[in-house]
């Protein structure tokens, strides 16, 4: 279980997180929604230790994430980055098997390649892409490769940062379905950041809306449409009028 309590983060004069409290139960899929610049990615990076919070506590199964063996902690995570973040100097299979080629999870090159090809197949890519470079693939294929890399070492927890940004609706649907299937079959805990409502409905067990640096609303996805919260209603229906200020 991941628990955040009173997490604050400020960049210069910009107070991004102003006391975030959130609990993500093991084996569930939490989707964080909220407008651009509300600190969704910062929140995710705080959990991973890529950004250090100014105040508050983040625990994983009761252990403070800032203490203990960092490698062992990170080995429990997989992450799909918004832009894919594939290493462009490496072949596709080397990207997917990155964790399996070095460190504590190191395997032989042949075994790592076999696992990479199997994970590529799982995300719908054939073995012919294994020896290509990221620049030779389309945006949708790069997202699939990034997904394959995130699951290559079979992590317990997977983070998805804007998994469908920049993709057409059909490819977005494919990625959403893949995420849902993979998370279910692996029994992993998932945390997804998105403002794509079709992703929310496809991926989420629970939803949390971030606004003004705090969790504005959280609950099961089945209750999202019925909530009377005007912020949630404005966001999920994409209305320009409402309590969330928008520049016009």
């Amino acid at each position, binding site marked *: 279980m991941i628990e955040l309590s009173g997490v604050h983060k400020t960049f210069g004069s910009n107070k991004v997180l102003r006391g975030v409290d959130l609990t993500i139960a093991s084996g569930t899929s939490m989707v964080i929604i909220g407008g651009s610049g509300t600190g969704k990615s910062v929140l995710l990076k705080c959990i991973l230790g*890529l950004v250090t919070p100014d105040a508050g506590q983040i625990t994983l199964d009761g252990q403070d994430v800032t203490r203990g063996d960092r490698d062992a902690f*990170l080995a429990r995570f997989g992450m799909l980055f918004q832009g894919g973040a594939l*290493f462009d100097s490496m072949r596709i299979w080397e990207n997917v098997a990155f964790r399996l080629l*070095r460190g504590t999870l190191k395997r032989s090159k042949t075994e790592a390649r076999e696992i990479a090809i199997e994970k590529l197949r799982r995300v719908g890519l054939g073995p012919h892409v294994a020896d290509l470079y990221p620049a030779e693939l389309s945006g949708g294929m790069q997202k699939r490769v990034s997904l394959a890399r995130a699951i290559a070492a079979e992590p317990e927890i997977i983070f998805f940062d804007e998994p469908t940004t920049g993709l057409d609706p059909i490819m977005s649907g494919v990625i959403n379905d893949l995420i849902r299937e993979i998370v279910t079959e692996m029994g992993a805990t998932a945390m997804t950041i998105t403002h794509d409502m079709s992703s929310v409905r496809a991926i989420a067990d629970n939803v949390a809306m971030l606004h003004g640096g705090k969790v504005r609303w959280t609950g099961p996805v089945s209750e999202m449409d019925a909530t009377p919260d005007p912020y949630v209603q404005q966001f999920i229906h994409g209305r320009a009028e409402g309590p969330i200020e928008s520049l016009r």
Partner: protein
Amino acid sequence: MSLLSPVAALGRVTLGLLAHLGRVAIFAAQVVSHIFRPPWYPREFFHALMQIGWFSLPVVGLTALFTGGALALQIYAGGARFSAEAVVPAIVAIGMVRELGPVLGGLMVAARVASSIAAEIGTMKVTEQIDALVTLSTNPLKYLAVPRVVAATLAVPVLVGVGDAIGIMGGWLVGVNRLHFNSAAYLKNTMDFLEVWDVSSGLIKGAAFGFLVALMGCYHGMHSGRGAQGVGAATKAAVVSASVLIFAANYLLTELFFS
């Protein structure tokens, strides 16, 4: 405007500069400490060695060749004013191995390598590849900076050595073909005047310059701002700071070795 405003502005600039120097020093100490601690990444090291050493050879060689030739012409023209044309081989050799070989080689490597390291690492930063390395349990400093810094520290002295030889050859070519020196006498003069310390001091300088070049490339790449403008600024800062540090280190090492 207060009378103290200029003083306050000067103080701010000075404090900013000192803070920047402190950050560079901490970064350098971290890189050096990681050199001696596993895990090591031999594949990245050999890749960096090829990129920095082998592929810099043409530019360093051509720079040395033309510099050696021009040096021979200048020394001959200057020496003729007091009938000292015979010193051309000795001065070309000493000038190349002690000063021009390491400094010009270092500068050419700074232009070619510091810029490419800063642009590569800066692009990795803005496309979240460095964050991805962290989530894949890989220390970016160890994986990206250490192999490049070690490779440059080892490769640049070799480049300087090769550059020294090519520069002396450039002087010999001009001396024999344009200034009508006897070929054997030119080479004998060169060998007679060169001492081991002349060459080895230049190679030590080369190692120091290689370290500084790669360090500046990695530092500015890892602290790159966002977007294309951020990467461009990081690249420019890497080349400028590496070049200035080469000149400063050259003076300090020359003081240390020869005064």
